[in-house]
């Protein structure tokens, strides 16, 4: 009997998810022993047309990382959806939009203009990338940037969501072993639509720091303040997203003395991670005086980028106006 097929694809992503998968160390041998890897651009040579040639539903497990930034990403999302039985939105970008979705704070043209005409860009003729070009050998095309960055499930339906930037290697190992057991009939897969490889609580619940009453007179930034290693970071005035963010990472960042930046997405029951975060932050500001409140909150220099660092595409508003 031939082995079930495995694919992994990157859309608008940094490659960190791929590293995280390789970082499962010897468990990668289980993947190889139990799956035939048919498509994984970062690890092996394969062409899109090889995927197109597969029968529909031929791929058993497809880990899709990256958000949908251009028409190539969207095309691959549709293609891999057709070819896969279990399509997993893998990593923050596929689940929530991730860092690329901060692009939704700007119009696409503004992003292109910034990239091709900043002071440090050597582009005296003010050239812009063209999406098609008539070469002597024929017309060639490059992918067109979409107006918005979207999550994978805003483009095609997915079976599972596996958050994290990147997903923790231990969680990947657990998910891979679960799928292998399920294929052998020894375990049941969670219901479709589930979040897998993550906890069911908040990062605060996993955080080892001591918490007491929160009353913040002043927000501080990591660049200019060294927090102590034991007290709650938020109580020290550092914007930490732990209270709004899903657990599963074992509070990795707060344990390393840096704040949670929210990569696991909204905690269970949270509809809009940014709203939850801003509500919690505002509530603990220690002042009843409008002017003082304004001056304390003025230190929150980038509210949209901080509260929606990973989840803008999945938020209620989805983008800036």
């Amino acid at each position, binding site marked *: 009997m031939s082995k079930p097929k495995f694919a992994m694809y990157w859309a608008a992503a940094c490659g960190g998810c791929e590293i995280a998968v390789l970082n499962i160390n010897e468990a990668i041998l289980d993947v190889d022993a139990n799956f035939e890897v048919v498509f994984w651009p970062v690890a092996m040579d394969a062409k899109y047309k090889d995927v197109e040639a597969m029968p529909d539903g031929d791929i058993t497990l497809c880990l899709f990382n990256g958000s949908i930034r251009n028409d190539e990403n969207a095309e691959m999302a549709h293609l891999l959806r057709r070819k896969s039985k279990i399509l997993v939105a893998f990593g923050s970008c596929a689940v929530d939009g991730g860092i690329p979705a901060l692009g939704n704070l700007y119009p696409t043209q503004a992003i292109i203009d910034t990239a091709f005409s900043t002071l440090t860009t050597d582009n005296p003729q003010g050239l812009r990338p063209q999406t098609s070009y008539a070469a002597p050998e024929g017309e060639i095309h490059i992918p067109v940037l979409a107006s918005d960055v979207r999550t994978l499930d805003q483009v095609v339906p997915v079976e599972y969501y596996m958050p994290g930037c990147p997903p923790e290697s231990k969680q990947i190992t657990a998910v891979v072993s679960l799928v292998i057991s399920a294929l052998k009939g020894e375990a049941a897969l969670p219901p479709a639509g589930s979040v897998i490889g993550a906890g069911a609580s908040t990062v605060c619940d996993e955080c080892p720091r001591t918490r007491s009453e929160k009353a913040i007179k002043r927000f501080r930034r990591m660049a200019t303040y060294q927090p102590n290693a034991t007290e709650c970071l938020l109580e020290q005035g550092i914007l930490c997203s732990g209270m709004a963010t899903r657990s599963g990472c074992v509070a990795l960042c707060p344990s390393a003395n840096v704040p949670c930046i929210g990569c696991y997405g909204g905690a269970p029951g949270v509809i809009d991670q940014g709203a939850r975060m801003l509500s919690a932050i505002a509530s603990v*500001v220690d002042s009843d005086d409008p002017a003082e409140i304004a001056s304390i909150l003025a230190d929150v220099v980038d509210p*949209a980028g901080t509260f929606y660092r990973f989840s803008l595409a999945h938020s209620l508003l*989805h983008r800036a106006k």
Partner: protein
Amino acid sequence: MTPTSNGWEPVIVGFSCNWCSYRAADSAGMARIKYAPNVRFIRLMCSGRVDPLFVLKAFADGADAVLISGCHPGDCHYITQNYKTLRRFALLKQTLTALGLEDGRLRLVWASAAEGTILAEEIDNMVADVRKLGPLNWKARTAQRVTAAAG
């Protein structure tokens, strides 16, 4: 409600507290004070109950503006909860501004149960401001962007 020439009327979602501002709206009604009928009030026990989520949801679902109203600071039925409203409103405003929403689309008004006239005036001002800003249309626009690129 008389629609404007292009058929658009501002849709404003209002969150008011049970103890002061909802009664202010009531007293405005009982005093037969005329004011713009564009605000759809949702009564909550306290303005402190207004989760920023409600406001975002209203915008995402098509509201042109959102009005939050509650008891004056110091007069809260629940002692200090409207101070939380004050703080959340400030940070929500900052966030919405960063997301490109105009200032006039979110307003906080304190109105005691006796201040029907003040609430009515504030609503009239707000409706006039929103009329100038035009429709927000977030719902249709987002749906269009999401499906357009989905193809």
